């Protein structure tokens, strides 16, 4: 046994697990029931191909995280197996879009961004991932 000295790097870590869960967004009115239609995630990441970052959502107090539907018009969300993941962006800021399954109704929604290792061994990097914003499109349904 010996000892090693280590330093924090000038670069970001190549992590092999990560996740973030947003707060529950009620879009300013917790009493209003909304029908959520789309979620947009603006981000960037180095390199190419599918990343291990899956995007999920939860409406109200659901105990489970749900998967979005793929948006065939958007190339930055990629269906990998059953997981809808972010595509790497070569370091450019991109927006991936996700479709809430119909119907997705509730008062609040939260998003989970989670590292799920791909079946492909080379799809483990999320080098220099940077999340810029998350947007939702929704329609107010009724107030109960």
């Amino acid at each position: 046994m010996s000892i090693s000295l280590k330093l924090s790097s000038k670069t970001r870590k190549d992590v092999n697990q990560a996740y973030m869960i947003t707060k529950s967004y009620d879009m300013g009115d917790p009493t209003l029931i909304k029908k959520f239609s789309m979620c947009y995630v603006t981000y960037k990441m180095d390199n190419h191909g599918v990343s291990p970052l899956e995007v999920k959502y939860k409406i109200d107090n659901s105990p489970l995280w749900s998967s979005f539907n793929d948006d065939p018009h958007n190339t930055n969300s990629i269906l990998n197996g059953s997981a809808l993941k972010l595509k790497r962006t070569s370091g450019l800021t991109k927006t991936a879009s996700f479709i809430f399954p119909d119907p997705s109704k509730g008062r609040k929604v939260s998003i989970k961004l989670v590292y799920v290792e791909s079946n492909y061994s080379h799809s483990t990097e999320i080098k220099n991932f940077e999340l810029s914003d998350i947007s939702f499109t929704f329609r107010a349904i009724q107030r109960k």
Partner: protein
Amino acid sequence: MPKNVETIRDFSGGIAKGYNPENLKENQMQECVNFVADGMGKLNVIPGETLLAISSINHFIPSRKGKNIHGWSADMDLSVSGQASTAGVAPVVTELQRGKRAKINFILSEVNGFAESATWTWLLIDTERDQTILDVQWTLGNDASKGAGNNVTDIYTGENGQQNTVSVADKIWRAIYFLEQIVLHGANDNYEYPLSFIETTGATARSTTQNSEADMLNDKFYVKTFTDSNDGWGSTTKYMLTAEYPYFGDLSNFTPCDNETLEYFYFYFLTKTVEDDTDTYTEWDSSTKTVANSLLMPQRTDWNETGNFGNHTIGNVQFCFQYQQPHSESTDNFGAFSRWKYTFEQNKWNETARYEIEIKVYTNVTQNNRTVYSASYHSEIGDHEEDIMSALFGDIQNSVEEDNMIFWEFVDDGVEVFQDARTPKPFGIESFTTTKTDSIIHNVASLTDAQRYQHLIAVSVGNSQASIYSMENDNWLDWVVDLKTTASSTESCTTADDDKTVEHTGANENIAVGNFVSGAGIPAGSTITSVTAGSPNEFELDKKATATGTVTLTFWDPENNTELNFVDCEGYLRIGDAELHALSKPKFFGFMNLDKTYLGIELDEPKNFFVDDAAPVPFTETRASDSASILKYQYSHLAHGQDDIFQYTTDDTQINIDTPTLSAYTPNPAGIRLFYNWIDGTSNSYDKLDGAFMKKEGTEFWWSYVYEGGYISKPSQFKQFNAQDDSTTNHPAYGNEDNTNTTFITNPGADTCSLGLSVSIGHNMINGDGNSGMINTRLKGIEIWGRFLDHDPSNLYLMTEIDLNNGWKSEVTGDWSILQEILDDGSIAQYNTYTDPQADTPLGDCIIYKNYPITTFYSKYGISWDKGIGFDVGGTGWRSACVFNRRAYYGNVRIKGHDGTVEYFPDGIIKSVKGLYDTVSIDNLIEATVNDGDEIICLRVAGNKLCQFKRHSLTVMGIKILENGESRETIDQVIHHVGLSNDNQICDTPSGLFWISRSGIYLFNGENLLKLTESIEGSTISKEVWEAFYGERTHCGYDAYWNQIHICKDTIDNSQTLIYSFNTKAFTEATNSFGSSQKTGFCQDKSGHIAWAEDVTSYSSDIEPDFNNTPMKKNQLPLEDIPDHEVS
């Protein structure tokens, strides 16, 4: 109701753990693991880590809760091992990736069954740049008019290029002509950067000329046909055209357009295969840039298709498809951005040089135009390699045209320069050169002290020892600082490889169950599990030995795996046993130049790092050797009364001095001989010099040593010269064994006389080399004191100072005077305050006191001369220390008390004499809060406040500087319930002290205390979550590079880390950090990066320590042994 859009742009609020997720602020998160909110709004991946060095010494980090690591900078010289006077290695440039254009194959099957009005579209969009690369729409036309078997103009058939007008089937004609449209449009449709097309060769190549576009590709393009039914696409004939993209970059940047915009044709790109929900083909491998050979056509569930494409029906079209793939025949064809690396790992800080770089950037796709960019920087002494690289590449990036923009980023051993998708026109970097000229290595003489420095990191490594790493030299010093007052117990033993049993014949009480064992072939951290007496004796280890043979093993009690405390004061490190074991004594470590340059002669003495006691015990002896020598049986520090040294006659202003030298007056080589002469007129030869000394004035002479780094030894009294009772000679051959040296009191022979002094010091006091001769490594001066029992018996008065470089001085003589070399048979035998003889010396140049001296020991040092000074015996030391206003403050101390016995003051702080960091005394004990069931854990400075942390409280003290320059500590406030468990839980930041306590996380800037947990103002952590996280091994460190605090849950197998970013004042978490089996706390390197040490239990092939303690990877520079000097 209309659709609404809600956008969350700010995640800088970090986590708010343990609270209702609905109640969080808009920018907060419920969880954030391995991401960090460290900038405006955004969320990034946590910083990475890099290996600095592995010690080749077979050691391990003590499994304790303390910090056990310390980084600091110190002035130094240039002759230390590794800090050679040679130039640093010049930067080198390597091309990591040549810029490549991506190639695309356009593949068509034979075209069957379309109406003549059908419009085919082939759309290729670079979505990264929002640019259309190709947009071809072509109506098939009246195929009936063509009819099967129509001629295709000028089709080359066969590999000999024979041009023929051949009759081909209509389905072939359509396919080829569509490809022809691609060429036409791709090359000529006024795209900003048109595609170019590549000749396809081989037996299956076909080509056709395009008469309508005379200058297109030399009037021809090439189409390859293939019919291999094993390619997974069925047996139909395919026609392929290969094009090159207009950029040098990665093809993965190109994605197909939405297939819904296409009519009839499905457009697919292999790198997108992962979006398919089948697994019938292999994804493009971005690491190897290959595609599996057995490529199957992609399938989508919404096509309602199964099986290979060749068997598919798409709409009403059978056996007809359009396909696009990256050229799969070689790895080149996916394209790549140009990337270069500038490697510059270690700049010699004492070297200046001109660094130049030149980068040629292509400005067109054919790469026949380029622009040259260059930058230069002339480095300055003390520049870090980052300074040089920032200067060079900052200039370059600012000057490159925006179209061909290049980027650079720091990596751990240099800079990478590249183009990427952000570059509008990435045509590649043609070349990158670097030069280094005008290199000058600045020697010691040309450098100021501030320019000679290096950064060091000390790490506790068990057995009361510390190992030290030099960042500038990139090596571990190949020895350790050992705090033990007695050597480790060793025994010759016999080991067998891959066996836990060790044999030995000797008796050794330290070979006991539970004790640690180290040595060659013994894994670090091994302990004894059983002991069996016999012939030979045996003991069992808990780990198997890895070598066979007879080796000397070292044994020690687990208690000696103690925590160590470190404090650096003006470049010198003090290391103390934090657990205050009786066998440990605080140590001093620092770079010293032992050269004595007295008289302008630079003696060839070592310049290196040295270890000594924090409070060295001055060397003294009573010599038993040296038979027939005057020194035999003599004490090393003698006072010798001698008449007529100062030969005064009334009214003289100049006198002769008869300095006693050599022979009977020789000083001990490592000692002092003080000659005193009462000028009282009693010798009958010379007159009395009138002065203030009376016959009743009993006088003692004392001496103390002055040590480099700030230690004054407790004064000791000179002993009387022991003359042999031998009346046959005036110069006795040697002392009398039976008449031991004694302290003594001398009185003048007459009233109102003066006192003259002459000092001789042994030659080894100056020219010893630290190994032989020079005994006290740190010794730099001597002070000689007088105690006047009638005048003022409570004080010692300074009579003479000797500086081993500057000479001597006294109150009555003014500035420094040179010491005189006294030769004996051509060699220096001693140094004297005067030459022998020295005639006509002005009285004012002699150490002659007509009146009592003025400076007392107390007035000079502020401490008593008759009490213990410094941590000078085993078991003394401190639990925490800090430096403020050029004084060291030691907290929770064990030190000699008023009665000379060691006392423990868990609530006490002892401050050092100003600028003399090892000079501490019970006189300067401060006890701010006592008898409170607590003890001092840590001392720190925040702003202008001294902060005393106990387990449960913080006492903030102000320090007033008095008119006389002394300082006085006053209690400003006591804050309860914010204490520390150990010194590993606090760190200094630009915002103040940051620490973790059982009650939460705090920040104190000297004025305001902020609680960062359970704060409604920002990112926060609930009490419940914090209680689950916090433990006594929880520790923190500040990373100045990232402006973040890392709070690790544990030093053992750390599973969770909280990250606090000062940029956003928010917490996030990490799970991938600092997870070694055992680690230290944190310190910083010279660039502000957080640094820590950890146990290494497995090694990669390129980093493998040599357990024989020789240098290794990242530790390759040759080491020189430190002189094995004595420290007593």
